[in-house]
Structure formats: structure tokens, C-alpha cells
């Protein structure tokens, strides 16, 4: 029966009236139980795509389905079957944290006792117990974000759409939040996760798509995306302000300069030579510091998009 709830976007194209092509022929599918990341720089078209899923925007062409439901033709079914945490904060200034979660669950049609129980579970799991009876207006941005997550997770339907869920959340609670994102998958829900935080997404998602310029430019598991960089290291140089980046040695496989941050990928075997090159650059005043680390999904992402994840 689980296969009945596969989420599919088929050749979704969105052209705004001003001619901007925000999505261009995007096709993907998400299985129940799967956490699927949508990665890409700001303006890539990720939010546009998920807004079409929830029925806030309409595709210019293409299909979006969940099992046997056509979500484009029936936006009220989309709202029933999908819950959505937008990029902006949820409107909870007047609500107490727990009250907002419970009321949202009730508005989504949840049973009173089940909603109450799940709200307490989520408050506990996200580490926000000390704010449970505080009004939203007095909460920090990060706690509000966690309450917002609990509001969409309390009675979530079949697909949970999370648009930058970790914004403003402190590092400790980010881990708790990612655990709960995984837990949604464990409960058999499909999770569509929009983020530009590649490093965090790498640990949380089962599969991911990289979107840039409205097009899906790569798709796969995090390990498959990193496959090209097996046996490689990332050598990162912070270029001194006002100085040019040093000339690249021949062993650098590829490089990207984002602001003052020069990121290169080198072979394991060239580690010593790389360190010498970086130290020489520091001695020569061209660089301030360097870091050598294992390659991550971010390196594959940078190669694909030409952006680093901090840049969005």
C-alpha cells in the first residue's frame, strides 16, 4: 500500500507573468518514508516548486501527483495531504507554544487526544519544554522555528514540506530537529526538504536534487553525488583581504573562489604538496589560513552550481 503514496512531479514548469522561468521541466519522485532534499542557491526555484505542491502557485505545465491524487487539479486535496512549513516564521505571536501546536493539529483534523500526546512528544524531542507556555511574541526566532516545525509535524498528512527548517535554530537543537525530520520519514511520510545548507542536508536526506536556474541539474543519494570525489581532499584557503589568490599548482583538480574563500579539491596523494603550497601562500601574505579536510557533498554541490552553501 505504501507505493500508493508516492509523490511525483513530472516535467513541472513555472513561468511567471513577467516572463521569469522559475521552474523548467523539473521531474522527481519521493517514496513514502524518504527524506528528499531540494538543494540550490537562492533564487534557484526550490520554493516555487514546493509552493506549487501545496497549491499556492499553479504550474504553467506539468503534473504533480500524490498516489492517485492530482494535486494541481485538486489543491484542497493538496492542503489535506501535505503540510507546509514556509520559509517565513509561522504566525504565532498571540499563541502559547504548546497551544499553537495543538490548535494547528486540530485545524488539520487531528483527534484531540492524539494531537495533545504528539504535541508533548514533539516539545520534548525538540528540547523546547521551557517555552511550552510562553507566547510566540516573546520567543526567539529559533524557538519559533521549532514550534513551527512541531505545528506541521503534529498532524502532517502524507507529505511534509519543510522550507529551510533550521533557519535561526541553535546548533544543539538543529540536531534534535534533524532527528525529528528523520523520524517523520520513519513514520512513513515523504519529506520534501528545501535547504541551501548542504552540510546539514547531507546527514539528513536519503536522496537529493540540486536545482539551479529553475532546472534540476543533478539527483541521487549523497554518496552517489560525492562519488567523483572519492580519494580526494578539500584544501581551503582564506585569501588575505586586498590580495589576489595565489596561482593554482597543477595538482589541483578543480577550484572555486567565493568571496575570500578559495576552495580546491586535490588527490589524497597530493596532501603534502597541497599543505606546502598553502603554507607558502600564508608566508607570502596571499592567504591568512588554510584547512585540509575530507571532501563532502558541498564540494560536489559547488562543482555543480558554482556557489558555496553559505552563499545560498
Amino acid at each position: 500500500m505504501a507505493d500508493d503514496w508516492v509523490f511525483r512531479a513530472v516535467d513541472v514548469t513555472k513561468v511567471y507573468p513577467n516572463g521569469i522561468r522559475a521552474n523548467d521541466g523539473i521531474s522527481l519522485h519521493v517514496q513514502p518514508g524518504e527524506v528528499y532534499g531540494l538543494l540550490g542557491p537562492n533564487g534557484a526555484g526550490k520554493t516555487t516548486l514546493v509552493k506549487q505542491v501545496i497549491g499556492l502557485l499553479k504550474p504553467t505545465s506539468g503534473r504533480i501527483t500524490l498516489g492517485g491524487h492530482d494535486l494541481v487539479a485538486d489543491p484542497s486535496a493538496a492542503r489535506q495531504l501535505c503540510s507546509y512549513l514556509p520559509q517565513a516564521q509561522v504566525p504565532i505571536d498571540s499563541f502559547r507554544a504548546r497551544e499553537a501546536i495543538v490548535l494547528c493539529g486540530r485545524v488539520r483534523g487531528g483527534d484531540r487526544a492524539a494531537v495533545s500526546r504528539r504535541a508533548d512528544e514533539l516539545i520534548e524531542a525538540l528540547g523546547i519544554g521551557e517555552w511550552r507556555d510562553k507566547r510566540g511574541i516573546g520567543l526567539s526566532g529559533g524557538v519559533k522555528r521549532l514550534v513551527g516545525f512541531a505545528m506541521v509535524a503534529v498532524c502532517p498528512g502524507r507529505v511534509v514540506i519543510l522550507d529551510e527548517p533550521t533557519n535561526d535554530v541553535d546548533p544543539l537543537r538543529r540536531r534534535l530537529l534533524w532527528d525529528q525530520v528523520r523520524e517523520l520519514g520513519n513514520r512513513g511520510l515523504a519529506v520534501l526538504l528545501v535547504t541551501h545548507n548542504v552540510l546539514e542536508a547531507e546527514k539528513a536526506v536519503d536522496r537529493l536534487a540540486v536545482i539551479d536556474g529553475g532546472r534540476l541539474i543533478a539527483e541521487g543519494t549523497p554518496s552517489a553525488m560525492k562519488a567523483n570525489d572519492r580519494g580526494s581532499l578539500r584544501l581551503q584557503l582564506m585569501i588575505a583581504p586586498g590580495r589576489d589568490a595565489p596561482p593554482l599548482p597543477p595538482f589541483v583538480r578543480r577550484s572555486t573562489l567565493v568571496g575570500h574563500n578559495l576552495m580546491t579539491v586535490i588527490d589524497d596523494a597530493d596532501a603534502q604538496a597541497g599543505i606546502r603550497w598553502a603554507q607558502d601562500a600564508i608566508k607570502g601574505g596571499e592567504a591568512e589560513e588554510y584547512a585540509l579536510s575530507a571532501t563532502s557533498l558541498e564540494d560536489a554541490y559547488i562543482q555543480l552550481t558554482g556557489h558555496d552553501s553559505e552563499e545560498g
Partner: protein
Amino acid sequence: MRAAAHAYWRMFVWDIADLRLLLPVLGCVLTLQGAGFVLGIGLFFRHIPETAAVFVATGVPVMNLITAGLIFEPQVVADQRLRGSYDFLWSLPVPRSMMTLAWYTVTLVVALPAMVIALLVAVARYGIDFDVSPAIVPAVLLTSLTGVLIGYAIAHGVTAPMTARLVSISLIFVMFGFSPIVFPASQLPGWLAAVNQWLPFGSMATITRAALVGGEAAGVARGYLVVAAWAVASALVVAWALGRRR
């Protein structure tokens, strides 16, 4: 039907909880508006003529109902659009019609006490002997509904928040200055009186006045038709605005 009733009730509870800090303030503002107008207009006269007193006493509560409908939703929605929370609310699985109905109920909850207080102030200040008929129920409900739907149409039809705010405030000024609500239409220039035959505000006053003081209002049936027509037209705009996906 049962699901729709549940959705309506839960959205009503949500709206009340969401606006609990704002509702008492709005109730106070409407009460000040109503009582202030009832008392203030009397200051224009050394001895207010009875007809004028009746027009003021029966018109001001209508202003309360219209103000609540026209101002409230456009301001709240403009705020939601600016904060970015509009998308979250409209992604909730509640039928648009039930959201609108819940909002209508919230508006009534806020406006009715102010309306009653304005009437009581009028009784105390001018000694008006109201002759309230059962028609007060449909008159008030239809007047309030039409005000809410016009406000809703502006709030959701005009996507630029500042423009929506300006349009709703401009309509309030039209209501105050250019609509025969607290004075008879015969006081207006002929052309403006003719225009008001087709606008909702004067007709809202006509039907409510007729239900409060029998015999003081003419054209009641036409008034109901005009107000109902505006309700239907606004509802169509609301349905278009809420159903539209860019």
C-alpha cells in the same frame, strides 16, 4: 457537512486565539467610534431635531458594522503578507468558505457589543424610543456580512499590502463623508444621492434603521436588494481571489 462544521469551528477558535490581544483593542476602538459619533454629532446642535437624532442613533451602529468589516481583514492580511505568514495560513486544510465564515463570526463578535453600546448611548443621550422589529436580525447580519465580504475582497483581491490598506481606509472616508448613513440622502447633492442608490452603505443604513424605528425609512425592499447584490458581487470577487493561484 460535519467536516465543514468542524473546520469552521476550529478556524473560529484559531482566529479568536490568534487575535486575542488585538480584539479587545478593536472592540474599544469601535465602541469609542460609535459612542463618540452619537455624542459628538449632538454637539453640532443646541437642540438636536428629533429626526436628526434618530438618523444619528440608527446610523452610527451601521458605521460600526461597516468599519469592522472593511478595516479589520485588509489590515490583518496586509500584516500577514508583510510578515510572510500568509502562505502558512492558506496552506491549512480548511475550505476557503469556512475560513471566511469563521472570520465573519469573529467580526460579529467584535462589532455587535460596540453596536449595542452605541444604541444604549443614543437612548441615554437623546431619549429615543426604539421600536425594534425582528427584521433587525437579517438587517444586521446582512449589513455585517456585506461589510466583511467587501473587506475580504479588498484584502485578498489586492495583493499589494499598502494598496489594500489605502483602499479600505478610503472606503471608510467615503462611508463617513459621502454616504447617507447618519443623515438623509435628500441632504446630498442630487447626483451623489443618485450614485448612493447603487452603493451599499446608504442601503445598509436604510434596512437597519427600518428595523430599529419603524416608519422612519423608505425603500427598505430596494435596500435589501442593493445590499444583497453587493454581498453576492463581493463573494464572487472573494471566491476568485482565494481560488486563484498565480
